[in-house]
Structure formats: structure tokens, C-alpha cells
């Protein structure tokens, strides 16, 4: 083929999008990948932050997929625009704060805009009917195609034979018989196809591709929205929800307590934005305070900080308290006994 048709594949870093792109490449189509960064992606962050994760070699799975396929990968920052998807999902949330159906529609729409700007012919996703209860059902497939604006230029190579033919199939750019008819939650057909193509060591995310599917994370985000009285957020807010122990000892302030060296180092980058404290007489965590910080809040937070330090059994622990302007003072406090920390202070 002299002028191959061009397709843009949504590459999440998981197996399905890897396979979907490969199936289409097999038919002589020029494929490039696109990957969206929402700020909630599991990709990379915890690795950068947490010391214990550094033992594993780091890898961006979307880039890894692109390398396996030998295609270009365009990574697009959608942090700002994505807020509306998270805050006002038309189709609601899944089990946690994951707006999967709206998210899919939004991403396919973005891919469609990219396609038009770059003169590509169609879009590929790794969706499989029945694979995910909220966003990948027989009745949601046409919704994604319609509401994203992609229409019949959206091809799902792994389950295409269970869906009406798309433009690339009708035009003969793709041979429908060489596409697949996967259906349901089983991963076996994908694993078999991966073996056939020689893909090994691919990523297998358990819940989904982002933190919004995580229960603990969603509880913290809900708490942030509720206590601020607004659902607005910025990248720093949602990054900090991935780090540390979060405690709310009073309705009007929250503490973020570093759990280990890597987290403390990461949190240091936020020192100018928050009142923060650190034990100086004993080894202990960096603690950021978010909210209304009066003297009583500082006293309580200092006693809790002492509790999380190596001086938890000491009579007094010295805590350095730093304000946002760079000023600091020291407090000698008694660590709060463990049985005086109500379980519901932990978010």
C-alpha cells in the first residue's frame, strides 16, 4: 500500500490497548499512539514518591507499549479540562469516584480532535464489551461513539465483530474478518493473543488505570471537596492525596503525615504552601497542615506529630512549627497517647 490509512490508538499502558493497536497495524495501517495525563493516573507517581516502590525498576507503561509496537506516542496533558469530567460526570460515578463512561467519551473526543488536526482516518481503543461493568457494556459502546463525536470512525478491534461495521470496515481499510469478537470479563482471549504476538511482561492494572477507582483515594477526595465547600481542585491537591497518612482531628483542618523518607522529601516541595511541622528532638515525619490553623490546632497537631515520631514514648518532644512566610518557633509537647486518637480522625 503506497498511502496507508492512518489511525490514532488510545494507549493506556494496559494489555487491551496494546493488542488493539497491534491488530490494526497487522492490516498495514499506520498507527500512532495517544495517551492522556489527567493527574489521577497511577502511572509513575507513587514510584517517584515512595521509597519502597523504588526497588522495582520504573516504567511508564504507555511508553513501554509504544516501544513494543514500534510506534510514536503523544502524551497529552488534559489536567485542566478533565476537572469537569470528575466534578460533573453526566453519567455518574462507578464504585468510587471514577467517572469511567464520561472519561471514555472525553478521551475519545480528544483523540478525535487530534485526528482532525493531524489528518488521521480513524481511532482505535482497546475496549471489550462486558469487560468493565460501567464503561464497557454493549449499550455504552454506541454512547461513547456518539457523544465523543467520533461516530463510525471509532474502531474497537478486540470486539468489533460484536458491533455494527465501522467506516474503516465499510470502506475496506480494515478487513472485519481479521478483527475479533471478544466478549465478557475473561482475560483469556487477550492473554492468548498476547502470546501469539510475543508480548510478555505487560501491565495488568487491577482496578483501573487511575486513582479514582481506589476507595481510599476517593474517600480523601470526597473529604477535600466537603470540607472546602467546593469541588474545585488543582494538581497539587490531587497529588497530595496520593501521599502520607491523612488525619482530620477537627472539621476545619487536616494533617498530612509523611510515612517514610521518600514521602517526606516529596512533601518538602509544598512547605511554602502549608503551615508545617517536624520533630527536632527525635526522628519523625514532616507534617503539613491544611485548613484554619489557630494556636489550638497547632498544639493538637504538634502532639499528634510527636506521636508519629520516634519520641512517641518520651515525656516531651520538641516540634518545630513553620508558618507560610518562613518564620518558625519551637514547642515542647507531650505525645498524644494512641488511645486518644479516635479512629475516625483517619481519612
Amino acid at each position, binding site marked *: 500500500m503506497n498511502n496507508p490509512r492512518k489511525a490514532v490508538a488510545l494507549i493506556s499502558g494496559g494489555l487491551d490497548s496494546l493488542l488493539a493497536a497491534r491488530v490494526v497495524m497487522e492490516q498495514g495501517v499506520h498507527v500512532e499512539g495517544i*495517551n492522556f*495525563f489527567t493527574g489521577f*493516573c497511577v*502511572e*509513575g*507517581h507513587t*514510584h*517517584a*514518591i515512595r521509597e519502597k516502590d*523504588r526497588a522495582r*525498576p*520504573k*516504567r*511508564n507503561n504507555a*511508553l*513501554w507499549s*509504544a*516501544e513494543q509496537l*514500534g*510506534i*510514536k*506516542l*503523544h*502524551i*497529552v*496533558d488534559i489536567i485542566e479540562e478533565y476537572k469537569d469530567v470528575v466534578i460533573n460526570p453526566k453519567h455518574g460515578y462507578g464504585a468510587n469516584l471514577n467517572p469511567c463512561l464520561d472519561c471514555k467519551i472525553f478521551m475519545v473526543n480528544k483523540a478525535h480532535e487530534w485526528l482532525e488536526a493531524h489528518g488521521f482516518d480513524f481511532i482505535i481503543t482497546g475496549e471489550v464489551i462486558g469487560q468493565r461493568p460501567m464503561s464497557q457494556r454493549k449499550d455504552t459502546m454506541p454512547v461513547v461513539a456518539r457523544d465523543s463525536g467520533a461516530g463510525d470512525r471509532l474502531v474497537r478491534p478486540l470486539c468489533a465483530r460484536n458491533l455494527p461495521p465501522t467506516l474503516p470496515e465499510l470502506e475496506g481499510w480494515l478487513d472485519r474478518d481479521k478483527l475479533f469478537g471478544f466478549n465478557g470479563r475473561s482475560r483469556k482471549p487477550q492473554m492468548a493473543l498476547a502470546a501469539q504476538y510475543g508480548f510478555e511482561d505487560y501491565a495488568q492494572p487491577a482496578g483501573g488505570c487511575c486513582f479514582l477507582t481506589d476507595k481510599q483515594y476517593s474517600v480523601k477526595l470526597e473529604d477535600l471537596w466537603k470540607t472546602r465547600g467546593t469541588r474545585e481542585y488543582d494538581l497539587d491537591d490531587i*497529588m497530595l492525596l496520593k501521599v502520607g497518612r491523612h488525619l482530620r482531628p477537627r472539621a476545619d483542618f487536616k494533617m498530612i503525615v509523611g510515612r517514610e523518607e521518600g514521602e517526606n522529601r516529596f512533601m518538602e*516541595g509544598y512547605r511554602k504552601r502549608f503551615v508545617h511541622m517536624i520533630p527536632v528532638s527525635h526522628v519523625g515525619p514532616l507534617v503539613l497542615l491544611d485548613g484554619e490553623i489557630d494556636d489550638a490546632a497547632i498544639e493538637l497537631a504538634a502532639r499528634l506529630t510527636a506521636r508519629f515520631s520516634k519520641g512517641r514514648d518520651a515525656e516531651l518532644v520538641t516540634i518545630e512549627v513553620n508558618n507560610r512566610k518562613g518564620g518558625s518557633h519551637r514547642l515542647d509537647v507531650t505525645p498524644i497517647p494512641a488511645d486518644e486518637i479516635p479512629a475516625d480522625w483517619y481519612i
Partner: protein
Amino acid sequence: MSETRVDARNLLCPMPVIRTQDAVAGCAPGDRVSVWCTDPGVVYDIPAWCRVHGHAVCDIRQGENEIIIEIQVGETD
């Protein structure tokens, strides 16, 4: 041949990769881009991004507090 410096310090992956991608988009083949970062993950991600796009990583300098990655832009399209 131009030289561009990208400040991606205090950003976590994939933001340094996105900043690199944006800078490279405005470059011609042969141009140099140096990316200043603090996230240790960049030593994997930026070279991987360069490999899939055909750019060369000329040098990775790892200091105590920052990592500097030097890139030579390949054929762009």
C-alpha cells in the same frame, strides 16, 4: 542549530516528558534540548520517549539534587 533549556524541576512523570515533547515540537533536526528534572523516573521515561520518536539522548548527568538530560532532536515530521 539551537539550544533549548526545559525546566521540569519539581514535576513528576509524565509532566517532564510532556514538557520535553512540547519543547522538541518547536525544534528542527539537530537542535539540542536540555531538560532539568528532579523526579528520578525521568532517567527511564525521557529516554523511552526519545526512542519511540527517534531523538538521541546524548548525556544524562545525575547530580545530588537534579538530573540533566541532553537530547539531540532527530528527524521530525
